[in-house]
C-alpha cells in the first residue's frame, strides 16, 4: 500500500519560487489530477514526486518512506511523458521491457510481463515495430505499457493526451479510467484540460502560482469552489462573476441587477456595504420573465443540445447563459434571466468563498 504525502513542499529555481508550500495527502489507489493554468507549477510538482527535480524544502513521502534523497529509479514510480519519450532505436518490445532488463529480470518473466502489458493495451501486433512507425495514439499506448510493466506504486502522467486529436483523446481517457480500476494503483495526472480532470479524478488538486487553491472531488469543486480562482477555473463555460455590494437586510445591489437581490446566504451577516462577487454558473441561468438579470443578447452559439448566449447587462457587465437547445432567441433581443437563490455563489473581496 503506497499513499503519498507532501509536507510543505517548496521549489525555487535560483531565487524564483515556483512551488510555494504544498501539503497534500493522497491515499493508495486514488486517481489524483493536478490542474491549473500554464506555468502554475503542475509539472514541477509532478517531477519532484518522480525525483527528476530537487526539492528545495519540505518532505515527500511515498508509503512511509521519505524519498527526498532517493533516486528516481528507487522510488517505485513510473512516469508517462507528454512527448512519450520512447527510445527511438528500440522496438516497442524493448522499449516496454527496458526497465525490467535494467532491473535484471529473468528473460521469461520479462517476456511474460511485456506480453501481458501489450495485451492489456491491445498492442500485441505492434511489438516488433520501432516508435517511428507508430501513430500518436499507439506511441501513447507504448509509453503507458512501459509504465505498467514496472508495476510501480505510483503512476505519474504529465499531460499524456495533449498531443492527440480530440476523438483519440476521448478514447484514451476512457482507457485510462479502465486501467486505473484494473491496476488498483495510485495515479497522479497533470492536465490543464478540465474535462479530463473532471472525468478521471477521484480528487482534483487545483494549483495556481505554486499554491494549492483547493483539493476535492470534482463535484465538490464544481459545487463549492473555495475561491474565485477555482470558481473561474472549473466549469465550462466559465462561471459568471458580477461585482455586487451587500446591504443590510440580506440583499445585494449592483448596476447589473434590475433590483436588489435577496440572498439567503447573507441573512446571518450583519455588516452592511461589503464588496462581494456574485457567481452564477451559465447552466444555472434560465429564462424567467421576472428574473433579476435583464439585458440585450449580443451573441448566440447554437450547439443543438444547448444554446450559449452572451448577454450584456446594464453597467457594462457581460454574462453567459447556457439555455435549452431549442429556445428561439435572436441577437439584439432583450431577455430576462433568473436563477435559484441556492445556486448562487458569493465571494468576499479577497476572493475566498463567503
Amino acid at each position, binding site marked *: 500500500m503506497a499513499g503519498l504525502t507532501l509536507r510543505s513542499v517548496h521549489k525555487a529555481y535560483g531565487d524564483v519560487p515556483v512551488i510555494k508550500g504544498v501539503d497534500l495527502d493522497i491515499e493508495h489507489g486514488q486517481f489524483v489530477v493536478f490542474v491549473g493554468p500554464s506555468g502554475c507549477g503542475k509539472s514541477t510538482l509532478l517531477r519532484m514526486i518522480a525525483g*527528476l527535480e530537487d526539492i528545495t524544502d519540505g518532505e515527500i513521502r511515498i508509503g512511509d518512506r521519505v524519498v527526498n534523497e532517493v*533516486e528516481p529509479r528507487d522510488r517505485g514510480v513510473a512516469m508517462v511523458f507528454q512527448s512519450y519519450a520512447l527510445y527511438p532505436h528500440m522496438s516497442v518490445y524493448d522499449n516496454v521491457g527496458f526497465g525490467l532488463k535494467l532491473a535484471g529480470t529473468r528473460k521469461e518473466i520479462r517476456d511474460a510481463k511485456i506480453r501481458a502489458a501489450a495485451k492489456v493495451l491491445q498492442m500485441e501486433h505492434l511489438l516488433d515495430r520501432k516508435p517511428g512507425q507508430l501513430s500518436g495514439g499507439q506511441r501513447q499506448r507504448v509509453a503507458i505499457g512501459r509504465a505498467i510493466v514496472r508495476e510501480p506504486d505510483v503512476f505519474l502522467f504529465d499531460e499524456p493526451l495533449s498531443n492527440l486529436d480530440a476523438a483519440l483523446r476521448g478514447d484514451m481517457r476512457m482507457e485510462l479510467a479502465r486501467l486505473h480500476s484494473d491496476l488498483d494503483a495510485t495515479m497522479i495526472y497533470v492536465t490543464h484540460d478540465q474535462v479530463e480532470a473532471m472525468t478521471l479524478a477521484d480528487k482534483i488538486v487545483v494549483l495556481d502560482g505554486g499554491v494549492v487553491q483547493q483539493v476535492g472531488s470534482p463535484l465538490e469543486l464544481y459545487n463549492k469552489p473555495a475561491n474565485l480562482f477555482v470558481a473561474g477555473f472549473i466549469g465550462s463555460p466559465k462561471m459568471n462573476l458580477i461585482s455586487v455590494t451587500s446591504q443590510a437586510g440580506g440583499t445585494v445591489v449592483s448596476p447589473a441587477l434590475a433590483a436588489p437581490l435577496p440572498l439567503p446566504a447573507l441573512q446571518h451577516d450583519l455588516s452592511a456595504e461589503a464588496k462581494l462577487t456574485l457567481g452564477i454558473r451559465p447552466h444555472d441561468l434560465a429564462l424567467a420573465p421576472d428574473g433579476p438579470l435583464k439585458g440585450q443578447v449580443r451573441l448566440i452559439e447554437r450547439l443543438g443540445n444547448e444554446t450559449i448566449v452572451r448577454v450584456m447587462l446594464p453597467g457594462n457587465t457581460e454574462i453567459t447563459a447556457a439555455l435549452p437547445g431549442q429556445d428561439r432567441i435572436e441577437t439584439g433581443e432583450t431577455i430576462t434571466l433568473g436563477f435559484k437563490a441556492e445556486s448562487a455563489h458569493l465571494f468576499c473581496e479577497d476572493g475566498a468563498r463567503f
Partner: protein
Amino acid sequence: MTDKTTSIPDALPTSKRLPPSRGSRKTRTAAWLFVAPAFIAYAAFVLAPLVMSFYYSFLRWDGIGEASFHGLTNYITVLTDRDLLQIIGNAFQLVLYFTLIPVVLGLAVASAIRSHMAGRFGTITRTVLFLPQVIPLVAAGIAWSWMFASTGLVNQTLKAIGLSSWARGWLGDFVWALPAVGIIGAWVLLGLCTMLLVTGITKIDPSLYEAARLDGARPWHEFRYITLPGLRQEIGVCITVTVIAALASFDIVYISTQGGPGITTTVPGLEIYRLAFAHRQVGLASALAIVLMVLVLISIAPVQWFTRDKK
C-alpha cells in the same frame, strides 16, 4: 577570452529552459567523471604545452643548456625583426589566395546553378571536388611541385599556347613562389567551399528570387540582395576554414618550397619549426607561436561576429 572570439557558432540555440534535474550532487559527480578523461587528455597535450609555450616565450633557451630569463625581448624581436615580419606578412598574403579564390569561384558556381545538384552529375561532382580534402596536404604539395616544375604541366601548357617566355621554375622564383603556394592551397580548398556554398544556396527560398524578379531586379541585384545575405553563414564558414588553413600552412610549404627561395614563402608555422629545432632558439620560436595563435584568433573573431548576429 570572450565568448565571441572563441566560439564557432553554437549551432543550436541552447534551450531557454534548461534541462532540469541537474543540480544534484550525484549528477555533478557523474558529470565530472564523464568529462574527466577528455579533459585530462586536453589538459595534458594542449593546455599544458600552451602554458609552457607561454613560459618559454620569455626565455632565452637553446633547448639543452641553461635557460635565462629574457623578458619581452622575444616578443619585441617577433614584432620588429624584418625577416619575421615578412614571414608573418607571407601568411597574410597566403590568406588572399587560400580564401579569395575558393570563395569567389564558389560563389560564382553557386549563384549560377542555384539548385540542388542531384543525380549522377551531382554525385560525381561531389566526389571529384572533395578529393583534395581527402588526400594528405603533403601529397597535394608533391603533386603541385610537379605541376610547377620546369617541365611540369603548367609550363607545358604555357608553351603550348605560345607563352614560352612565361615559363619558369615557379616554386624557385622569388616573385612567383608565394602565389604558386597560394594556388596549391586554393586548389585544396576550392571543392569544399564550392560545395558548401552550393548547398547553402539551395536553402534560400526560391520564391525570394521570383519576388525580386517581379520587383524588377537585375541578376546583379539578385546576387547582391538575396544570394549574398542568404549565404552569409556559409561564407563565414568558408572564410573561417580557409583563413585558418592559410595561417597554419605548414605541410604544403614544407613540402613544396621549404620556405624558399630565401624566405619568400616561409610562413610562421615553418619558422617556428626551424627556430625551435634547427636554430635552437626555443624562446623566440615560442613567442612566434603565441603571436601566431593570437593572430588566428583576431582574424577569425570578426568573421564569427559578422556571421553570428543573424539570430
